C-alpha cells in the first residue's frame, strides 16, 4: 500500500491500521514523492490525500492515470473535501474509492481488501461509479 498525505497523523493512522491487516505500507508526505514511490514500487493500491502543497492529489491521480506504468494502480481518495463536486472529480480521475475525513481507520484494512477483491472480480468500473452513486463513506 502507498499512503500519500502531507499530514503525518493521517499517514501514521493508515500505516498502523493497515499493518494490523497484514499489509505493508509505504508513506509519502507530498505528491511528488508519492508519484516517485508509485512508479518505483508499484503498490497494490494508493490512498491519496487531495490537499497537499505543491503537487496536489488531483494532479497525482491524473499523472498516475496518464502513465502506462502506473495506470492500473487503484487509487482511493482519502480527503477532507466532502463536496459533491469533489467526489465527481474523484470519479472522473478514475478513483476506485472516496473516503472522507474523519474516517474510521479500524475498518480501513477491510475496506482496502474489499476494493482489491472487487477489482480482481472485474468490478473496477462499478467501484468508480460508486464514488458518486454509492452509499456515503
Amino acid at each position, binding site marked *: 500500500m502507498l499512503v500519500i498525505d*502531507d*499530514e503525518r*497523523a*493521517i499517514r*501514521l*493512522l493508515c500505516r*498502523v*491500521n493497515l499493518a*494490523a491487516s497484514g499489509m505493508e505500507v509505504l508513506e509519502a508526505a*507530498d505528491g511528488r514523492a508519492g508519484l516517485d514511490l508509485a512508479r518505483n514500487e508499484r503498490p497494490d493500491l494508493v490512498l491519496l*490525500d*487531495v*490537499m*497537499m*502543497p*505543491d503537487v*496536489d*492529489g*488531483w494532479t497525482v491521480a491524473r499523472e498516475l492515470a496518464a502513465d502506462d506504468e502506473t495506470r492500473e494502480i487503484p487509487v482511493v481518495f482519502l480527503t*477532507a*473535501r*466532502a*463536496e459533491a463536486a469533489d467526489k465527481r472529480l474523484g470519479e472522473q480521475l478514475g478513483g476506485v474509492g472516496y473516503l*472522507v*475525513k*474523519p*474516517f*474510521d*481507520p*479500524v475498518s480501513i484494512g477491510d475496506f482496502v481488501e474489499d476494493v482489491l477483491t472487487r477489482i480482481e472480480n472485474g468490478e473496477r468500473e462499478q467501484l468508480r461509479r460508486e464514488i458518486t452513486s454509492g452509499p456515503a463513506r
Partner: protein
Amino acid sequence: MTSVESSEAADRARRLQRVAELLAEAVTPEQVLDAILTEGVRAAEARAGSIGVVGDDGEQIVMLAQIGYRPEIMANWQSFRLDAATPMSDVIRTGEPLFISSVQERNRLYPLLADQGQEGHALVIVPLAVEGQVFGAMSLSFDHDVEFEPERREMKVALGRQAAQALSRSRLYAAEQAARQRMTFLAEASELLASSLDYNRTLRRLAQLCVPRLADWCAIDMVGADGGIERLAVAHQDPEKVKWAYELQQRYPPDPDGPRGVPQVLRTGEPDFLPTIPQELLEEAIGDDVELRRIVDELGLTSSIAVPLIARGRTLGALSLIAAETHPPFTPADFELAIELARRAAVAVDNARLYREAERGANAARALAYVADGVVLLDRDGTVRHWNPAAATITGVSEEEALGQPVTEVVPAWEQLTSHVPLLAPGSAPRPVTVPIVIGGQERWVAVSGVGFGDGTVFALQDVTEERALEKTRSDFVATASHELRTPLAAVYGAVRTLRRDDMQLSEFDHAQFLEMIESEATRLAKIVDQILLAGQLDADAVELDLTECDPAEVAAGVIESAATHLPEAISLSLEADGPPQIACDPNKLRQVLANLVDNAVKYSPDGGAVVLRVQSDNGSCRIDVLDEGLGIPAAEQSRIFEKFYRLDPQQTQGVGGSGLGLYICRELVERMDGWLTVESEPGKGSRFSVVLPARS
C-alpha cells in the same frame, strides 16, 4: 304780477338756487338723495318726497329714498312694477309730470290707490330724465290740496331736472368708482394668484381678499381626486363665523348631486347668480329642520353668486360669494367680476398643477437617472420606452441604442434574463430572480423583478455580482473551515479508534505517538475554532484589548520558543532583537499576531529555509519583521491577503491549511493597537511581514 307774487317767485328762485348749490356739492348718490329729499322737498314746500328709479331689469321701479312718509305705507312701495297703474309708473313711462290737487282726484285717476292712505292731499310726480332718457321719478306730497299754477308747476319740474342731473352724475361717478374698485381688486387678486405655486394657500388668501370688499362670505370648493367636493376655503370678516361655517359644512355636507349652488356649478360648469335669494329656495333647503332654520335666519342671506373655476375645459372648482348682513345685493357688475375672478383663479390653479406635474415628471426623471437600479420600461409590444443609465451600465447598452427598439434585439439574452421572472401586479411585493448574464465577455449576476401594468411592463435590474461574490466567499469560507476542521478531527478520532482496537498490539512508541497526536490535533482544532470566533468578534467590534507596557523582544522570544516545539526539520527559526523600545500593547494579542506570522512563514516554506523574527527600533517605533525564504506572494495578491476569507489558493488544493482568517485577524489586531501590518514579497524568494507599533509615550 303782484308784488306778493313777485316776491314769491323770487323766493322760489332763491330756494331752487339753494338746492342747486347743494346738489352741486353732493358727490355720491347718497349725498344727492339726501340733498333732494331735505332741501328739495322743503324748497317745494312739500310734506314728503320719494325717489324711485327703474331697476337693472327694466321692469321694476325701485325706491331709492324717501322722506316724510309713514314707514308702514312705504313698506309696500319698496319696489313695484313699471307697468303698474300708479302715478310714478305713469310718469316714468310717459316722461310727463303729473300734478294731482287732492286725494279725491288721485283716487279717481288711480282706483288702485283708493284703499291706500286717505290722509294725503296734493301730489306731484316729476320725471327724472337726462338727455331725454327717463330713468326715474320724484314724488312730492303736500299737506293740503293745491291747485298748481304754471309757475309752481315749472318750479317742480325744474327741481326734478336738477335732481335728475345730479343723481345721474353721482350714479355715473359711483359706477365709475365701483368699476375702478373692481379693477383694483382684480389687479390685487391677479398679483396674489401669481405670487405662489401653492394654489391651496393662494386660493385661501383670495377668499380672504374677497371679504368684505366683494361679499360678506366667500367660499372656494374644489373637485377632489375622487370627484367629491372639497371645501378649500371659507372667508368671513369674523373668524368665529368661519369656524361656525366649517361646523355647518360638517353637519350638512354638500350633496354632489344637489340641484343648485356649488354642486350644480361644479357639475355643469355654468355660473349661478341669484341677485335676491328667493324665500322659496331657502324654505326648500330648510325643510323641517328647526336648527337649520335658526341658522339660516341668523345668516340673513340675501344674494348669491357661484361661478365655476374652469381651465382648459375642465371645471376645477367653484367660487361662491354671498351677500348677507352688510353687503348690498349683488349687481350684474359683481357677477361679471366674480366670473373674471374665477377665470383668473382657474388659470392660476391650472398653471400651478401643470408646473407641479412637470416638476414631478422632472423629479421622477432625476430619480430614474441617478438610481443605482436599472429601470427598463417596455410597451405592450416589448419595445423599449425607458432605459435609465443604471440599466445601460448593467446591460452595457446605451439609452440611445435601446430606446424605441425591441428589447430582444437590444439585449439578445433578454429572454434568458426574464423568462423566470414572474410578472407581478402593480403594488405587490417584489420577487426578484437572480440570473447570470454575460456582458462584454464578463459574467454579471442580475436580480430582475418585473411589474406588468395595462400599457406595458417595467423591469428593475440590480447588479448583485458583488453580493453574490461575497456570498460565495462566505460559503467558500464555510467549506474551507470544514476542511480545516476535518483533518485534525480525523486525526483525533482515528487515534482514539486505533488505541481502542483490541485485535492488535501497539508498540509503545506508536502508543505514545497516538496520544501525542490526540493532544496536538485537539489543540489545532481549538485554534481554528478560536480564529473563527475571533474574526466574528472583530467584525462585531467586540474584541477587548488589555493595553499594558511590554517588552516586544520578550513577547517575540516566547513565540519562538513555542514555535520551535513543532518545527519541520528543514526550517531554522531564530530571533534577532536589537534594543527595541518598550511599547504599549496587549501582549497576548501581539503574541497571537507574531505566532500566526511565524506559523505562516513556516507553512509557506515547504522546502524549508530560515525563518527569522527580527525586533528593532525604527524611527522611534518598534518594528517586528517576520522573514522567510518560502514560496512568496505574487504582487497582485499582496494587498488582498489581508482580506477576510481571502486565500492565496482559493481551490485550497495546495494543502497549506488555514481558515483564511489568520492575516485578517493579525492586521485587525495590530491596527487596534495603533500599529500597522505590511508585507513585502517576491515569489520564489520569500516574504517579509512587518508589524510596526508605536513606542510607549
